[in-house]
């Protein structure tokens, strides 16, 4: 009788220890995804493969954004983000007012990670012709990591040489005086 109790106690302890050990192994064994990071002010935009919605021209993000020789405001959007859905209606007017106050040419670029068809559906019924619509042609996850996207929309003000100068998370614009000093 006594021996049975001792055995039961040992078994309970062993099971508990085993459970704990298995949990630790599972937790420690799973490689943690890398922490997000992004282009700091002064960094060149990453050379991510992208396509342009108007004709599907393929290039790299850096070439697309810095190709016109002017400043660009790159908005990283998601077709499933509610704020981004509202931006289709509200953003352009706000952008134009902001760009007017910058006293320089700023080119609007939207980048979506969900692919060409999704971006085409997302923008089809809206008057966004003055925005360069770009989609990632490679891994959206990789693009998000390299661009330091922890939420959408994320905006980067990029100078004419393709260097990131200012980053904004959310539906706001970089301060106009900063943009003026970079883009005039």
């Amino acid at each position, binding site marked *: 009788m006594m021996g049975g109790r001792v055995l039961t*106690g040992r078994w309970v302890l062993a099971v508990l220890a085993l459970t704990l050990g298995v949990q630790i192994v599972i937790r420690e064994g799973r490689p943690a995804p890398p922490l997000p990071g992004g282009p700091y002010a002064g960094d060149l935009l990453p050379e991510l493969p992208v396509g342009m919605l108007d004709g599907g021209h393929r290039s790299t993000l850096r070439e697309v954004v810095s190709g016109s020789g002017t400043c660009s405001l790159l908005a990283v959007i998601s077709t499933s983000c509610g704020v981004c859905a509202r931006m289709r209606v509200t953003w352009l007017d706000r952008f134009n007012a902001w760009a007017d106050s910058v006293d320089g040419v700023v080119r609007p670029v939207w980048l979506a990670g969900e692919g060409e068809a999704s971006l085409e559906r997302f923008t089809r019924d809206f008057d966004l012709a003055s925005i360069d619509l770009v989609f990632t042609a490679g891994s959206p996850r990789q693009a998000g990591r390299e661009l330091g996207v*922890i939420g959408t929309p994320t905006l980067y003000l990029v100078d004419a040489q393709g260097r990131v100068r200012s980053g904004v998370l959310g539906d706001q614009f970089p301060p106009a005086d900063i943009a003026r000093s970079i883009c005039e």
Partner: protein
Amino acid sequence: MTNSGRLGAWGSGFAAFLLLGACESAKIPDSAPPPRQLPLEVIATLEDSESFSVSGIAPVQGCSVWVAGSAWGLIVEVDFMTGSLREVGRLPVWASGVRLERGDSTDLVAWSVSPPWLARLSTRTERVQPLRIPVHPWIGRTMGPLAVLSSSRVAIAPIGSQQIVRSPRPWTEVPLIRIQDAAGRWVESVGHVEDRGGDYLSAYQARVRLGSRGDTLLSVNLVDAVVTVFSSLSDPGGPAVIRSVSLPRYFSASPPQEEIWRADWLQIGGARPRIYATPHLAEATFGPEGRLYVLRNHGFRWNSDDTTLSRQLYTRAGRWESTEQWLEIFSVEGALLGAYALPNGRAFWLRVDDAGRIFLRDEKGITIVRNPVASALRCGGEFRAVTLDASDSPDHPTVLSLNPAVEPVVALPPDV
């Protein structure tokens, strides 16, 4: 029993105790028994549709109500006697989450946090008069919960909404409530935001809802469940705190804590704060008679579900979650008049009118219940349920026009 046997038994008992303790620590125990909850009588329901989700409701003449669409601010009138709908028009602003409040005479007040926007809305002419909104020293123009006072004045708690606002270091003293006149000019400051340390805790603990009774301004803090009564707005020295009343507390809450992760490459919006808190109240509103109606939080448990990203960014996975809610009603003197079970278990916010109705915003839409402390139900209605089948879209054909008799808002003098 041998020594090793005793050790084994003690060890397993101790491990079980630790496990039990870990489970128990994830729940906040009661410090006082919750009140007995009575049922509420549901009068009618206004159910969201695919194209319309309610973000605001206010009574208008007769027994009708106006509701605002959460996506694009479409105003819809619901005839409470028949349940029929009329699309009044879209507000002339790209605002989401528009709230509606009772105004004076035939006016309502519409407001939104994103973008910060405030306007009077005439139910007679169906025109809109935008009002100037306060420039907050911390974050610029911002809107928060409000109460309409006599003489068309409006009291606003600029950082009292759910938006988390960073407070400056060194600390800058700011009023808790600002009062504007009919033209939108800042005429009075009431109370002040307390420095609670951290970056976001001060604003978090300034979450208040406002109301008025006659010429007296009322506020209730959601976090600590304290009601503050301010002296008459017509006092020469301006309103001052004349009474603070703590509502009953059914658990002991630890002080809110914050954890902030910063994406250093983003100069604006790169801080990702997380608040760990157990607010006593989920929401609150003052009725037109000055009574206080609160949605209680209760049964907080730690929910460790979290995203992979959040698990990387923060030291703690998960957050406190209230597992139970109910409605409590307090008299103007602060006495508990009753506690009531919510028809759908939970609600996000609520409004009360003077016709004996309480409007509860829950996950289905608006559930309208009979006010159990009102003397009579003046607007019973003949319908039980109506689906808000309206098109809350940016290209709605009717856009409410601005009141032409009003000067443009930009012509107003700068803030005091």
